[in-house]
C-alpha cells in the first residue's frame, strides 16, 4: 500500500482545489440538473409560464341548469385551478371581487391587456342567453363571448388558442344538450397536451441518473487525461518514478482517488435532486450501485485510453471533445431517444453510454429497459476491456525525446 493512499488523496484534493476542474466536475452538473429541471420539469413550484387571464361575466344569473353563461364561466375557471396531480394551472385567472362592479372590472382589465399585463381578457357579454336561445331556436348567428388580446404577444396567441378549444368544447356541450350535436364527436380540452410534460415518474427522476452519468463521463474523459498528460508534460509523474513508487501502485491510487471523486459528484447531485427538486428515485439497490460503479470504471478506462494515444494534454482534451458530443448526446442521458437516422442509430448502438443509462434507469425503475440486462453490462465492460488493453500497451509515463 506504500504510496497508494497518498496518490489517491493527491488526485482527489488537487481536483477539488482547482477551480476549473471543480466547475466542470461539480458545479456544471449541478447547474445542468437545475436548468434542465427548470425548463422541462415544472414540478410543483410556481410556474412562471402560467398565462395571466381575466374573466368577467356580465350576464345576469339565470335560475336552473340552463345558465349557460355560468357553464362557460366555470369552463374557464377550471383552467385557472390546479389539477389533481398538483400541477400548475394553465391560467392565472382574475375575476371580479365579490361586490365589485363587473363593468368597472372590465374597463380596468382592458387597460391591463393593452399595456401587456394580461395575456387575455374574456368577457361574457350581457344578452348572452338571449342570443343563445335564438341560435338554438334556429334564428340567429349564435351567442358570442368577447376575447381581448394585445396583438403580437406570444402569450396572448397561446391563451387565445386555448380559449378557442374551450369554446369549441362548450359549443359541443350546449349543442348536444339540446340534441343537435353528437357528443362522441365533441372536442374536448386536453390540458396535458398544452401544459408541462410532467408525468409519472417525474422528469427529475429520469434526468438525475443521466446527469450523474454525465458527471462521471466528464471526470473520466476530461479529468483523467488532464491529470495524466499534464503530469507527464510538467514532469510531475517523472518525479514519482525516481522513488520506490511504481506505475502499478500509482494507477491503483489514481483510480481510487478517481472513484472517490465520482462518489462526491454523485452525493452532491443526489442531495440537490432530492431536496431541491423532489426526486424520489433511490439509488440504494445493489444493481443501481453496481451500474454507477461500472459507469465510473468505464469512463476511467476511456480516460486512460485517451491518455495513451494523445501526445500532449491539449491533444488529449481535443480527443475528449471529439468523443464528448456523440457519446453524451447519443446516449439518452437527458432526453429519451426517439427515432434517429441510421448513422446516429449506429453510434447509439455501440455507445456504452446508451447501455449504462438504460441499465441504470431500469435498475432504478425510472424507465423500462429497452435492451436485455446482460447487454447493458456486457457492452460497457467490453469497452472498458478494449480501453485498458490499448492503454496498458501504449500509455507512456514520460515525455518522449
Amino acid at each position: 500500500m506504500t504510496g497508494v493512499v497518498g496518490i489517491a488523496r493527491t488526485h482527489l484534493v488537487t481536483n477539488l482545489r482547482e477551480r476549473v476542474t471543480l466547475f466542470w466536475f461539480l458545479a456544471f452538473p449541478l447547474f445542468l440538473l437545475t436548468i434542465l429541471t427548470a425548463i422541462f420539469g415544472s414540478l410543483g413550484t410556481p410556474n412562471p409560464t402560467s398565462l395571466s387571464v381575466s374573466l368577467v361575466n356580465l350576464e345576469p344569473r339565470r335560475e336552473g341548469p340552463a345558465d349557460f353563461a355560468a357553464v362557460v364561466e366555470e369552463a374557464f375557471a377550471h383552467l385557472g385551478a390546479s389539477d389533481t396531480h398538483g400541477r400548475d394551472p394553465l391560467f392565472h385567472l382574475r375575476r371580479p371581487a365579490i361586490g365589485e362592479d363587473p363593468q368597472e372590472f372590465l374597463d380596468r382589465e382592458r387597460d391591463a391587456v393593452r399595456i401587456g399585463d394580461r395575456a387575455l381578457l374574456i368577457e361574457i357579454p350581457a344578452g348572452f342567453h338571449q342570443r343563445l336561445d335564438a341560435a338554438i331556436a334556429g334564428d340567429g348567428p349564435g351567442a358570442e363571448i368577447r376575447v381581448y388580446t394585445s396583438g403580437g404577444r406570444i402569450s396572448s396567441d397561446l391563451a387565445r388558442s386555448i380559449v378557442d378549444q374551450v369554446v369549441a368544447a362548450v359549443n359541443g356541450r350546449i349543442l348536444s344538450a339540446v340534441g343537435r350535436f353528437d357528443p362522441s364527436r365533441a372536442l374536448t380540452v386536453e390540458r396535458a397536451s398544452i401544459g408541462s410534460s410532467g408525468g409519472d415518474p417525474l422528469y427529475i427522476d429520469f434526468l438525475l441518473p443521466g446527469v450523474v452519468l454525465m458527471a462521471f463521463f466528464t471526470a473520466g474523459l476530461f479529468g483523467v487525461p488532464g491529470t495524466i498528460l499534464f503530469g507527464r508534460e510538467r514532469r510531475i509523474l517523472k518525479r514519482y518514478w525516481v522513488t520506490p513508487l511504481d506505475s502499478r501502485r500509482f494507477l491503483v491510487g489514481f483510480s481510487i482517488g478517481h472513484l472517490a471523486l465520482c462518489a462526491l459528484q454523485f452525493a452532491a447531485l443526489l442531495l440537490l435532486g432530492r431536496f431541491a427538486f423532489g426526486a424520489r428515485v433511490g439509488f440504494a439497490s445493489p444493481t443501481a450501485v453496481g451500474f454507477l460503479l461500472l459507469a465510473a470504471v468505464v469512463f476511467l478506462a476511456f480516460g486512460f485510453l485517451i491518455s495513451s494515444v494523445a501526445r500532449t494534454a491539449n491533444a488529449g482534451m481535443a480527443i475528449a471533445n471529439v468523443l464528448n458530443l456523440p457519446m453524451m448526446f447519443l446516449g439518452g442521458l437527458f432526453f429519451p431517444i426517439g427515432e434517429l437516422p441510421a448513422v446516429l442509430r449506429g453510434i447509439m448502438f455501440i455507445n456504452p453510454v446508451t447501455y449504462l443509462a438504460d441499465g441504470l434507469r431500469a435498475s432504478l425503475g425510472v424507465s423500462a429497459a429497452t435492451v436485455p440486462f446482460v447487454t447493458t453490462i456486457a457492452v460497457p465492460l467490453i469497452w472498458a476491456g478494449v480501453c485498458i488493453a490499448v492503454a496498458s500497451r501504449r500509455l507512456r509515463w514520460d515525455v518522449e525525446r
Partner: protein
Amino acid sequence: MSERETLRVTNLVKHYGSVHAVDGVSFSVAAQTVFTLLGPNGAGKTTTLEILEGIRRPDAGSIEAFGERRSRIDRAVKERMGVLLQDSQFEPYLKVREVIALFSSFFRRSLPLGEILDRVALREKESALVRTLSGGQRQRLAVGVALVNDPDLIFLDEPTTGLDPQARRTMWSLVSDLRRAGKTIILTTHYMEEAESLSDYVCIMDHGRIIAEGTPRGLASELGEETFIEFDGRGLSDAQLSALGSAGRVTGAGGELISLETTDLAGTMERLIAWSKRNDVALRDMTVRQPNLEDVFLSLTGRRLRD
C-alpha cells in the same frame, strides 16, 4: 569495487536513433564526496544521470551501486537515493507539507516533516500551495523532497540553473552541508564556478563522452603554468588585433573578451601596455587569472562551455 565507492559505471551506452547521447561512459564515485559531470547542454549529462536514477535503461554497460552489480536501478536502490530532477514540477494545487508527506509515503523510512522543512527553510511556507511559490522556493522544495528518505546517494541535475545569485548561493551551501553530513552527491552543471567550488572530482563530458577527469585543481594544472590576461575587446580593428600577437598568444579573440595566454606574466604585461598606448586602446575590465575548468574545456574542444 571498494568499500569507499558508492557507484561504479562501466561503458554506459544510450542511443536515440542516430544520436549517441551517452557513448561509452565509465567512472566511479567515491563515498561521501561530491562528484560532478560538467559539460555544455546536450553533452549527455542528464541522460547519464537518468540511467543512474532508474528512469532510462542503458543500451549497454554495467552499473554497480552500493557494492552490488545491477542490470537496472531497482526498488532497493531507490529506497537509498534522493533525486533533484532538472525540469520536474510538483502538483500545483498541493501544499508544501502535503508534497513532502506524499513523497515520504513512497519510502519505507522517512525523516520527520519538520526536519525537512527546517533543512530547506520552508517552515513558513508549509501551508502554501506549490503554485504560489517563487522559483527559489520551488527549488528548495525539490531539494527537500529529494531528502525525505535521508538518502545515502543524492543526484542533483543542474540544481542552480535558472536561479538568481542569492538562491544559487543558498543551494551551494546546502550541497556543502549535505557533503559534511556524509552524503554522496552526484551533480551535473554547465557552470564552471559551480563545479570548481563544490566538487571533489569532476568529469568533463562532451558529445556523450568523458573527455577529461580529475580534481578541479588537478585538471586546471594540466594546462601548465599559464596565466590568462583578459580585457573587453569590443571595437578593435583587425589590424589592432594582429598587432596584439606581438604581446602574447591570443586565445579568445573571437568574441567580446580578448584573452592572452602566457607563462611570462611580467613580460607580456609590458608588451600589452605598450600595444595599448600605440593603438590608443583602453584596457577595459582587465583581469589576470589562473586557468580554470572553462580553459580546460576550451583547450580540449576549442569551444566554450556555454556556446
